[in-house]
């Protein structure tokens, strides 16, 4: 099997090539089959490998295959090679599994779009790039996938390129990601440059890991921070998150696949993949945690004040990605990956459900014009409910386990009550805005126009079946990571142990528990304290989450006039949050305008007046002098050339006479 791992990314590439090169005359059905089957084939290969892994000893669960040398220059060498281990197989399963479902869904969703074939070409290309990203065995091949998914994201956000907002959003996504990649590249250079100077020329993960001890803590901090800059771009964290909400201009399946389930989690995967470097840099990990936490909180506040259903989900994604970074920042890589997986299920589902709602509502996105869809779109309704329960962290659903694991890690690893508190508060807000969306979409009176109302209908099977599959996963997906506290064995952590090792837990200090003991007025022995603290925090988080749902219910079901009153009372605050704290405007003012100003200065003033002015001035000066001397000003090039050559001969003659 090890020799065939390259098939995982290869299948979607083949699908892309078939549809792209030969597909002009294909009927839609054939295009759809080619596209879907290519991704399903990847999933089948991934599943086969996974099953094989299950039968192997944990330490030996690694397949590596080098296909050929890629860039070789001097001592520097990098290859096209693939690596499947416990971590990448999870990513492969998620990407190709959720990817397959979304491909199938898209067949229905995009059915009447004139760009049907183009859409599936891009989507296949995306899956190919994403699988390259997660299976590449070296940093540079990961970077190929990294930029490749960025390209597909650009193409798919701007899929409806005739809309200016869409093409602007696509461009913005690409450029903001490039800013992140600037950091990523510098990280690569620093890493290669330093290891190279130590005689180790490699970018291969396994060799990097073996030589990580050569890197001192200071350098490790620099390198990991630079890589993290890349992650803030790709995974939409502060300060580079601004592209993701705009990315909602793309077709909804794209938002689901790329901007929720897979691509945006690449930054989390990257940190998890490079865990052996991050573990050397505690400062970076702290930065990652704080940025993640800040993003999670900040984006959640914005999410509470949006009316566009996809924007709510977009900010929710930014916020949830923040959680994942809190997880990996706490050194709990497995928890981060766990949340990545459950998030792929429920957020992928939420976007698809939103697509289904848009389908029913003739493309409407504004929640103020929805409501009462429960009866008419029952499957969408029930699946959305399950996803909302999962993301809100209601016990028993997948999000509960993964989110709780992260909150606990943030608390215990950093020994900080505040990290936990901000995270838990964010979870409460998440529950609130998700159910705000849920209630205003499906409950109450329908506020749509008569025309739209008339057309409301449930989506076809091809769209609802993927919803149902994802709904099942959103419910049960968490049971691979039931914590010991609840009598589980945290399978996923155990599964990932060969990749992440045991290096993380620097056992929480007793001091931390003092805060908790005072906060919750409990005490106990060291071990008992830990589990009782974990239990208390868990219960606390559950209560906060349920409170969020309750407030949403109060605002949007019980007393629908409350939100209006609230907005009136806190008008300034609402405007600020509703307008996303005016960050886009700030960036525009600070960066874009100044760049354009600089551009105009360089072009109009410096290049055309100064430099060219000097050139043209010199030319006319020479021509003038020539005119006086020769009394002929031909303006012909022969004349100029003659003068120049004559001058040269004089100079040469002088030089020769000096030498000889």
């Amino acid at each position: 099997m090890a020799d065939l791992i390259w098939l995982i990314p290869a299948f979607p590439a083949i699908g892309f090539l078939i549809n792209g090169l030969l597909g002009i005359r294909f009927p839609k059905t054939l295009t759809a089959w080619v596209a879907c089957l290519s991704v399903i084939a990847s999933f089948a290969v991934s599943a086969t490998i996974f099953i094989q892994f299950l039968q192997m000893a944990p330490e030996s669960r690694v397949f590596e295959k080098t296909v050929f040398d890629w860039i070789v220059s001097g001592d520097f060498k990098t290859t096209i090679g693939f690596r499947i281990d416990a971590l990448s197989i999870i990513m492969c399963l998620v990407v190709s599994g959720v990817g397959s479902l979304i491909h199938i869904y898209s067949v229905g969703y995009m059915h009447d779009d004139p760009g049907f074939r183009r859409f599936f070409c891009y989507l296949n290309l995306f899956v190919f790039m994403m699988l390259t990203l997660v299976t590449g065995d070296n940093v540079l091949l990961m970077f190929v996938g990294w930029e490749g998914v960025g390209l597909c994201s650009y193409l798919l956000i701007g899929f409806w390129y005739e809309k200016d907002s869409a093409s602007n959003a696509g461009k913005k996504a690409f450029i903001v990601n490039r800013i992140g990649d600037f950091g990523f590249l510098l990280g690569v250079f620093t890493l290669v440059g330093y290891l190279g100077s130590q005689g180790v020329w490699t970018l291969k993960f396994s060799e990097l890991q073996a030589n990580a001890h050569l890197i001192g803590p200071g350098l490790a901090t620099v390198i990991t921070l630079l890589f993290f800059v890349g992650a803030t771009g790709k995974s939409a964290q502060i300060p580079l998150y601004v592209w993701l909400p705009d990315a909602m201009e793309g077709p909804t399946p794209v938002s689901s696949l790329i901007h929720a389930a897979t691509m945006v989690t690449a930054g989390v995967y990257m940190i998890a993949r490079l865990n052996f470097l991050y573990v050397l840099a505690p400062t970076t990990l702290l930065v990652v945690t704080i940025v993640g936490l800040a993003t999670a909180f900040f984006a959640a506040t914005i999410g509470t004040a949006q009316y566009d259903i996809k924007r709510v989900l977009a900010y929710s994604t930014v916020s949830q990605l923040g959680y994942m970074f809190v997880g990996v920042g706490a050194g709990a890589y497995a928890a981060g990956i766990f949340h990545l997986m459950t998030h792929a299920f429920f957020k992928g589902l939420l976007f698809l459900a939103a697509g289904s709602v848009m389908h029913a509502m003739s493309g409407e996105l504004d929640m103020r014009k929805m409501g009462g869809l429960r009866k008419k779109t029952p499957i969408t309704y029930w699946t959305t409910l399950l996803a909302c329960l999962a993301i809100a962290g209601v016990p028993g659903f997948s999000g509960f386990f993964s989110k709780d694991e992260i909150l606990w890690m943030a608390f215990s690893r950093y020994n900080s009550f505040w990290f936990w508190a901000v995270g838990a508060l964010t979870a409460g807000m998440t529950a609130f805005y998700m159910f705000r969306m849920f209630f205003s979409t499906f409950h109450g009176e329908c506020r749509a126009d008569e025309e739209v109302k008339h057309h409301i209908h449930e989506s076809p099977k091809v769209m609802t079946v993927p919803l149902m599959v994802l709904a099942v996963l959103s419910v049960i997906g968490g049971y691979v990571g039931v914590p010991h506290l609840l009598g589980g064995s945290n399978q996923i952590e155990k599964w990932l142990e060969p990749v992440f090792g045991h290096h993380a837990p620097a056992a929480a200090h007793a001091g931390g528990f003092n805060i908790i003991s005072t906060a919750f007025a409990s005490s106990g022995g060291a071990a008992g304290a830990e589990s009782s603290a974990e239990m208390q925090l868990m219960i606390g988080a559950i209560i906060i989450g349920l409170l969020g749902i309750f407030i949403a219910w109060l605002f949007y079901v019980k007393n629908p006039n409350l939100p209006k009153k609230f907005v009136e009372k806190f008008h300034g605050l609402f405007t600020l949050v509703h307008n996303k704290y005016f960050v886009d405007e700030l960036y525009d003012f600070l960066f874009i305008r100044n760049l354009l100003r600089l551009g105009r200065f360089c072009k109009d003033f410096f290049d055309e007046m100064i430099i060219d002015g000097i050139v043209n001035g010199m030319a006319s000066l020479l021509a003038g002098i020539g005119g006086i001397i020769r009394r002929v000003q031909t303006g012909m090039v022969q004349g100029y050339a003659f003068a120049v050559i004559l001058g040269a001969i004089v100079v040469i003659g002088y030089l020769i006479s000096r030498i000889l």
Partner: protein
Amino acid sequence: MTEFSVFGIPILTFLIFFPLLGAVLLLFVKRENTLLIKAGALIFSLFELFASVPLFYKFSNTAKGMQFVEKADWFPDWGIGYYLGIDGISLLLVLLTTFLTVICVLCSWKAIEDKVKEYYITFLFLETAMIGTLCALDLVLFYIFWELMLIPMYLLIGIWGGPNRIYAAIKFFLFTMAGSVLMLVAILYLYFYYYNQSGIYTFNVMELYKASIPIAKQYWLFAAFALSFAIKVPMFPVHTWLPDAHTEAPTAGSVILAGVLLKMGTYGFIRFAIPLFPAAAIDAVPLMSILAVIGIIYGAIVSMMQPDLKRLIAFSSVSHLGYVMLGIFAFNMQGVQGGIYQMLNHGISTGGLFLIVGMIYERRHTRMISDFGGISKVMPIFAVFFMIITLSSIALPGTNGFVGEFLILLGAFKANTVYGVLATTGVILGAVYMLWMFQRVMFGVITKDANRELKDLEGREITILCCMVFFIILMGVYPKMFFNKMDTSVAEYLSLVKNRNAQARMLEQNTGATAKVATEATNTNMTR
């Protein structure tokens, strides 16, 4: 050493003069018979291409020094020889030239309707001059070909160019002429200096590499060579001829100008300016690197603001060639190899962009970005090619551009972190100006009626662009094929520069006989 010949003529001589033969034969074709003229030019350039391909396979990857060498006396009394040879660096550039010439003939097929005969004669003549410049290892021979390149290019711009062609042509001519005259002075100075030192009159470059020149003198000589080459590259701030020349030149002129002629500048640094005066070159690293970095950033920023597609691409060339220069002056394997690779990449991707602009210009007779918008809708095939070439230009991994840019930046970063970091910002700016341009041309709704009826690409155009895309992908995915050819040559070049630099410094410290002995010892070691 591998040798082979075509029709009994040694290969390099054949490659140089075969296009000239074509040009001469075209003289006898009636000027009304344009089809025969075009077909003739195509056949000659194609045959030239096929004749050059075996070079690639017969070239030994491991042999040191020049290959396919031809050496004959020309003016033996003055030490002028007919001395040809290529190493892995010039090999790749020769192939780029023969490839792009075919592309240029094909893309002129319909665009040139006026003075067709003269046009193709000029083009074939230009090919002779370009290949000659790349193969010449005698300074006089090199200089002759170097100057010969000017004439056809001047004519291409001045006769078949746009409305402001005379200004652009004269500017191009004077700029390059001014530089090359200084180079001529330096060549002659070097010639007499070497005679004084060794008692031999020679223009043989391999021989002149051995000259031991005091560092202070190297400065002046290097400056003269470097100015001439820097104008050709063009480096900031002597770049302003380029946008004018590109804007006014016909499509094929722009393609060959960007694809090959600019590379003569960077090639000149590697072959002549640096190895002849290594100590001066190494002392010039800060200056050259700073100018290169300014070129990268400045070119990108100015490019962003251009309203004219061709000017935009011209300034992007300033930026891209800045990368090449930065790589060359990193003086390490990654930087130099990346620089050379980027020379090829730029020929493919910027050449491709000029082709793209030419194709749309033929349909709309305008190059102003504001005249377009929404073209994707009416020209979907064109859109695909345009996108791929754009991505190559912004160095997306998987395309050729990435390999070159990555190695250059890695090399630059290793050599000097500050230059490396500053140059890496070009990665962002490149995406800004290219994607913004692409958006304004291709996306949005069609606002101009003239754009509604545009025809998508025809077979000939698709063929041309497929060739470009083929190399974009091949060079991006399997660069090893090309790196293998230049590995030995670049390593040899670097060690030559290093040794000769060390030797010049030593000479500076120890005066008199001891130094001379040491020098000679090193010389004999290195010429092997």
